[in-house]
């Protein structure tokens, strides 16, 4: 009797966990909009992360920005002439909520991790060099000479 009860409890617990996992997987972010993403920089977009070229530099002693390629799905603020943009993110291995530091204060967001295919809502400004004085790892350097945007704020986005 005791053993049967334990098994039943275990099965119920596993079922609850499964439902929780499923529910969590299926729901999108609560909101991709906040007062930072709608006000920082001069451009605000919802865009799909199309490519992360190579691997992020895993350097404990250097801060850097890493340029990624996006396909723009919607422009909320500002003007863009192209639907492909290149965006530099500060210390991309760090969740956006904790990425700001003494030297780079105007960055943040709610995104935890950069994954190809994900949609982001971002507050941007260009050219990046005007906003970030540090190491910029831009693996599109040889193939793309246009403006690179600086990501002030990055939230998980929803498809428009």
């Amino acid at each position, binding site marked *: 009797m005791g053993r049967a009860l334990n098994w039943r409890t275990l099965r119920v617990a596993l079922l609850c*966990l499964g439902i929780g996992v499923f529910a*969590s997987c299926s729901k999108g972010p609560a909101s991709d909009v906040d007062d930072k993403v709608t006000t920082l920089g001069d451009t605000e977009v919802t865009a799909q992360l199309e490519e992360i070229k190579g691997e992020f530099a895993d350097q404990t002693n250097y801060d850097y920005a890493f340029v990624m390629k996006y396909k723009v799905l919607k422009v909320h603020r500002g003007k863009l002439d192209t639907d492909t943009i290149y965006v530099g993110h500060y210390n991309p291995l760090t969740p956006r909520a904790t990425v700001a530091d003494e030297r780079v204060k105007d960055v943040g967001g709610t995104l935890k*991790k950069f994954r190809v295919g994900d949609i982001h809502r971002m507050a941007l400004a260009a050219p990046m060099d005007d906003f970030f004085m540090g*190491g910029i*790892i831009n693996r599109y350097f040889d193939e793309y000479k246009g403006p690179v945007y600086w990501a002030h704020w990055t939230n998980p986005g929803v498809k428009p």
Partner: protein
Amino acid sequence: MSKKHILHGFLVAAFLVLLFGVGLSQPILDIVQGERPQVLEVFSAPPTEKNLRAYEKEMEDTSTIVQTVRPYMQYAHFLGLKDLGKDVLAGRDGWYFYKPDVQFLIEPWSGQEQVLAAIRAFHDTLAAQGIQLLVVPAPGKPSIYPEKFSARVQPGHGAVSRHSREMLARLVEAGVDCVDLFTLFEQNSATTSLYLKQDTHWSPEGMRLAAQEVAADLQRRGWVTKGAVKYMFKPVTIERHGDVLRMARSPQILAAIPPESTTCKQVVREDTGQPYEDSADSDVLVLGDSFLRIYERDEPHAAGFTAHLAQQLGMPLTTIINDGGASTLVRQELSRKPQLLQNKKVVVWEFVERDLRFGTEGWQVVPL
């Protein structure tokens, strides 16, 4: 139930918690925080060795429990074993070293040709525009103070920076002008502490010695005539934990070790009393890495290599400073800002010796 059974049960439970606790708790924490459980990402890519390793590393880096426990474990390692983590090596007498600095000295390295090609290409591009290039490799701390790393190195040990010296010789042979700070620092290392104990970088004295040597070299070659701007010094004392200690990522370790106190000379204009500032119109452009950033853009500000080089030359300078990026990233930035080369007579290019091997993005030929 006997005590023996209770003990067995406790041990089994503790063992199971150790085995599965972290793995099972993280998905629950993810769900509680409204996130997709990260554990599911193992299914998002083909199960190749590379993907699985990346997944494993990411789990380690982002696990809440690991993040919480790691600083304490690191502190325990430090107390018991003097171990400060994967990037830090504890030396003698309170000296700490950055592991890649040491690796560069003791491991084989075969990337000389790529470095040479990149530097020569940059030299030739500048020469075509009538601009001189002066290359200044900065010695790493263990190159100058190997005896602070290991008791097996005796005073009077001789040169340990074989790769850098060979590269210097090859550069000179290829017609690239260089400053040899290795010999200068070795001659002065016994009388002055040229590096910070807790940091990868040079001390204010080491930095100033380098700036004086570069200024003297530029004037000896007749590339720069001393300007008319007068600067004076303002002593400023700062206290900070060095970057090597901070790499351990354990506040407990930082709390256990007192910060290093350093007296800097801030460079101030005599006419205005304002701290030194760069000028885009200078004859001299200085490219470099965190060896130029320390004291200059960090506290106390205007007390680093470029400020002191400017003081020696009597003129403000143009700079591009890029932590860890002096091999390729500074030249890419220069390529994006070609206006910085206008009216330039000289480019001074500093990089730390370990970046010959470990420079971010390697040594690419960058068209200007």
